[in-house]
């Protein structure tokens, strides 16, 4: 049992437990905070997978961006603590059954699959090659993604804007 | 070619002048209706001029009928040339025009009636552009039928004429115009189908040697169809007096009989006449009905002389039925126009009786009667049109005493009525007399019984005359104006023709004689020859 394993299991547990918290939390605000930990856990896993750049991005974007957005959303749409977080959309039992089936299937597949290489590759720096890739091979998706973000930005502003005339 | 104008033959001119007029009419802006009328008038006047030229240059000694060298003003070029398409081989359709003594009167009649019809159309007040365009198209169709010598071409013209007629009745007609138009259309189309079938049957039975390639090819040439030697021995219509030749003759007969119309295929006529606008009634009665009998003489009889002689007696019987039945039906009518429509049936019966006799007098009388009836019945329909324009009713019993109110009109009408009665000195007398003379020689009793028609005609005509023109004038018609100058322009040429041909029928009979005598000879010779050979 080396340190790597210990760290992995620790963060994996953190991730999963906090994800459980997201899903099962009665309060939406707690759920949001649980999500924070999940994101951290995932970032840690990225580090364990030698994806330093992604890990940083994960923390910056998810924690600093998306999660903040979500919390803003929660704040704006409701008095957070009064929100009834009911799971009435889908029957609990069928939901659990379905999800269990999926989980079972997935895990079963993943564990029984004989992956071609199950060994770590040597660590390599990732930030530079990723930058190079984005500017060469993936330049079109990259630009499209930036345009998408721009559009999303403007769209979000327009959609979220309160239309005064209509409210009357 | 001798008779050309601007390098184009007279017959092409006379046939397609109206099409030129139609194009011009179509180019005229919608609002400028006067220009359309004058264009149509101009086209028909030019047509009349060509008809006159043809008449003047016509050589009465040439026979025609089955001999292309005896036709006049002939134009013959290949029109459609389909090379070797499968089982029907090499299709050649010729643009083959020509006239003889049989078509000459019809060409003149068509030009004359078309001209008069335009004048009668002057008051059309709905969609003039369409009206005059269709009218001129109709004119081309009619003229084409009378000058075509290729059966395919004949059929094309026959059908060209059908569609404008349908629209002219269906759009510009009276209250029940759609019914009448559809009835007319379906009847005629039914006939056309039969003609088409026979035409195809003949096509596949007749072969002539292609002048270029020297191969035996099928042909639509009518003149070739008249020669028994051109029939392939084992073809459907080959042979002599065979079952299929009889069938083809009867089918062709029905096709043409619908146009004449011959009892019992006549019921489209009263409806079409009553609903059609005046000018179209004039065309319908004046020219269209003649196409049926023209078809008999041009196509049925010379191509199937054996069957013609075999069925001559039933034809005469049908003629008799037409005469008496039409007259009796006319007597029962209370609608002026319907009465005249039935009188047309009666008078066309005389034509049928005459041509069924298949002798010189009968055929001459029949063809002359075709011409005379065209002119006289045109006058009669114009007469009705005049009164309908003014009073908007055609009931015979709605009028009375118009003789004092409209003296000139009454005078014209009297001439027309007595011409229809067959008063000597007016044109129809001569033709009826010749028809009866001919019929009497061949079918004595039929002619005797048919002469009852003379009496009945006098009966219903005079009765109608009395009801409309004599007696006391009803108060409401006190304001009716007499005929105006435009109407006189339509009437006067017809009246002149009626009187002139009554006194000097020779001017028209003379050019016809050679052809018609040849036709009689031909039918008897070939017809009996075929029968004897059997």
């Amino acid at each position, binding site marked *: *049992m080396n340190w790597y394993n210990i760290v*992995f299991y620790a963060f*994996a547990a953190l*991730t999963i437990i906090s*994800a459980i918290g*997201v*899903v099962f939390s009665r309060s*939406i605000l707690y*759920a949001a905070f649980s999500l924070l930990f*999940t*994101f951290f856990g*995932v970032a840690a896993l*990225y580090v364990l*997978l030698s*994806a330093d750049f*992604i890990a940083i*991005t994960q923390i910056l974007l*998810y924690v600093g*961006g*998306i999660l903040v*957005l*979500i919390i*803003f*959303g*929660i704040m*704006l*749409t409701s008095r957070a603590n009064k929100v009834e*977080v009911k*799971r*009435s959309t*889908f029957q609990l039992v069928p*939901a659990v059954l*379905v*999800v*269990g089936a*999926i*989980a079972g299937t*997935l*895990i079963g597949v*993943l*564990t029984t699959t004989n*992956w*071609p*290489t*199950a060994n*770590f590759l040597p660590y390599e720096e990732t930030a530079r*090659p*990723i930058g190079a890739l984005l500017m060469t*091979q993936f330049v079109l*998706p990259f630009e499209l*993604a930036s345009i*998408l*973000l721009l559009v*999303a*930005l403007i*769209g*979000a502003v*327009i959609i*979220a804007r*309160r239309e005064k005339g209509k409210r009357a | 070619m001798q008779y050309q104008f601007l390098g184009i033959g007279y017959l092409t001119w006379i046939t397609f002048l109206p099409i030129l007029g139609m194009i011009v009419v179509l180019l005229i802006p919608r609002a400028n209706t006067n220009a359309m009328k004058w264009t149509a008038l101009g086209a028909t006047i030019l047509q009349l001029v060509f008809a006159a030229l043809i008449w003047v240059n016509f050589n009465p000694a040439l026979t025609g009928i089955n001999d292309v060298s005896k036709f006049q003003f002939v134009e013959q070029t290949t029109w459609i040339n389909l090379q070797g398409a499968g089982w029907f081989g090499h299709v050649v359709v010729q643009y083959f025009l020509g006239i003889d003594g049989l078509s000459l009167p019809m060409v003149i009649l068509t030009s004359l009636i078309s001209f008069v019809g335009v004048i009668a159309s002057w008051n059309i007040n709905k969609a003039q552009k369409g009206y005059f365009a269709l009218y001129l198209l109709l004119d081309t169709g009619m003229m084409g039928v009378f000058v075509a010598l290729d059966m395919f071409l004949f059929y094309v013209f026959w059908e060209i004429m059908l569609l404008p007629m349908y629209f002219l009745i269906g759009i510009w007609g009276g209250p029940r115009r759609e019914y009448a138009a559809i009835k007319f259309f379906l009847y005629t189309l039914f006939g056309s189908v039969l003609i088409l079938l026979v035409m195809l049957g003949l096509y596949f039975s007749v072969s002539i040697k292609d002048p270029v390639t020297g191969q035996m090819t099928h042909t639509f040439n009518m003149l070739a169809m008249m020669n028994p030697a051109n029939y392939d021995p084992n073809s459907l219509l080959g042979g002599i007096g065979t079952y299929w030749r009889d069938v083809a003759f009867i089918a062709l007969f029905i096709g043409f009989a619908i146009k004449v119309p011959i009892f019992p295929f006549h019921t489209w006529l009263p409806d079409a006449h009553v609903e059609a606008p005046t000018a179209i009634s004039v065309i319908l009665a004046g020219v269209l009905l003649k196409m049926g009998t023209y078809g008999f003489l041009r196509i049925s009889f010379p191509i199937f002389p054996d069957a013609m002689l075999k069925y001559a007696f039933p034809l005469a019987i049908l003629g008799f039925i037409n005469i008496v039945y039409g007259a009796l039906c006319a007597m029962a009518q209370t609608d002026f126009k319907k009465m005249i429509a039935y009188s047309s049936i009666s008078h066309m019966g005389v034509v049928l009786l005459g041509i069924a006799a298949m002798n010189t007098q009968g055929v001459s009388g029949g063809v002359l009667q075709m011409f005379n009836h065209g002119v006289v019945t045109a006058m009669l329909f114009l007469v009705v049109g005049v009164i309908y324009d003014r009073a908007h009713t055609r009931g015979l019993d709605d009028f009375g005493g118009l003789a004092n109110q409209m003296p000139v009109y009454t005078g014209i009408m009297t001439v027309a009525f007595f011409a229809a009665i067959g008063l000597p000195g007016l044109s129809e007398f001569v033709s009826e007399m010749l028809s009866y003379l001919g019929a009497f020689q061949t079918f004595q009793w039929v002619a005797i019984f048919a002469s009852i028609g003379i009496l009945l005609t006098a009966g219903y005509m005079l009765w109608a005359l009395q009801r409309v023109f004599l007696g006391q004038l009803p108060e409401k018609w006190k304001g009716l104006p007499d005929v105006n100058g435009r109407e006189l322009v339509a009437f006067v040429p017809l009246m002149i023709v009626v009187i002139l041909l009554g006194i000097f029928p020779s001017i028209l009979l003379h050019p016809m004689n050679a052809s018609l005598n040849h036709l009689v000879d031909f039918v008897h010779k070939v017809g009996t020859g075929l029968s004897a050979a059997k």
Partner: protein
Amino acid sequence: MMVPNVGLTQFLVVSAIMFSLGIYGVITRKNAIMVLMGIELILNSANINFIAFTRFGLMNLTGQVVAIFVIILAAAEAAILLAIVLNIYQQLNTVNVDEVDKLKN
């Protein structure tokens, strides 16, 4: 070793569990924001897969690039979704997805 050495499978299993939890969240929650959070979980689980495969040589660096795109899309999605939620809330005074059924009927 009682505990197996950490390899590709372990990462994938973590990812699978997260995925299932995300699904569960999406399925069971009414609140649109909660649904969004479920979706984020799913996306994260997918990212873990990408990066794990990259790390274990089944994918070259492309996996990481894709992961970056996923993150970008997630951000855009979150922004739009929250804007929509806000709008719906203003219009209908609710953020429960099962009550937002104006398109139905």
